[in-house]
């Protein structure tokens, strides 16, 4: 159960078109990633709401193909 960084980025890019996205493969195994996402869509949203938006963009793959995804989200000015 793994996912390529490209596939992960494509899902995020589709949901957050304006975003600055950085993806780090923490283990090299394609199942522990960190994503740093800056998007206007996060403006005024709580951290919980921001992360829920990211999980929604991943369409249920979190917890399945993706074992671990550390998130750092912030609003773009």
């Amino acid at each position: 159960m793994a996912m390529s960084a490209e596939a992960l980025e494509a899902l995020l890019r589709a949901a957050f078109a304006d975003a600055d996205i950085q993806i780090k493969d923490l283990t090299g195994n394609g199942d522990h990633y960190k994503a740093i996402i800056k998007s206007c869509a996060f403006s005024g949203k709580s951290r919980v709401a921001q992360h829920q938006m990211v999980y929604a963009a991943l369409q249920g793959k979190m917890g399945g193909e993706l074992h671990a995804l550390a998130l750092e989200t912030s609003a773009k000015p």
Partner: protein
Amino acid sequence: MSDALEAIRNTVAGHDVVLFMKGTADRPQCGFSNMVVQILDHMGVDYFDVNVLADENIRQGVKEFASWPTIPQLYVKGEFVGGCDIVREMFQTGELKTLLQDKGVALAA
């Protein structure tokens, strides 16, 4: 509502601070759960830990309950605070302490 969701609702309502985690506070079985345990212990917070590995219905139920796909999950006074990343970030910025104090949760000095 399913039995699992009802049980989760009762647990969250019945304790000031609830941590759904993999393993127990004494013996965490996942690094992410362990990190939240370390933070809460460091702050001297009294919390109720629920080992989701002990009950598959609870393990799936908490994901649905909070619309949150991962574990650990921290609740304070019935409100979902976040998972490992958010709790760590809030601890580092001092927001977690402020939140707990505002909600009237006792902390060790």
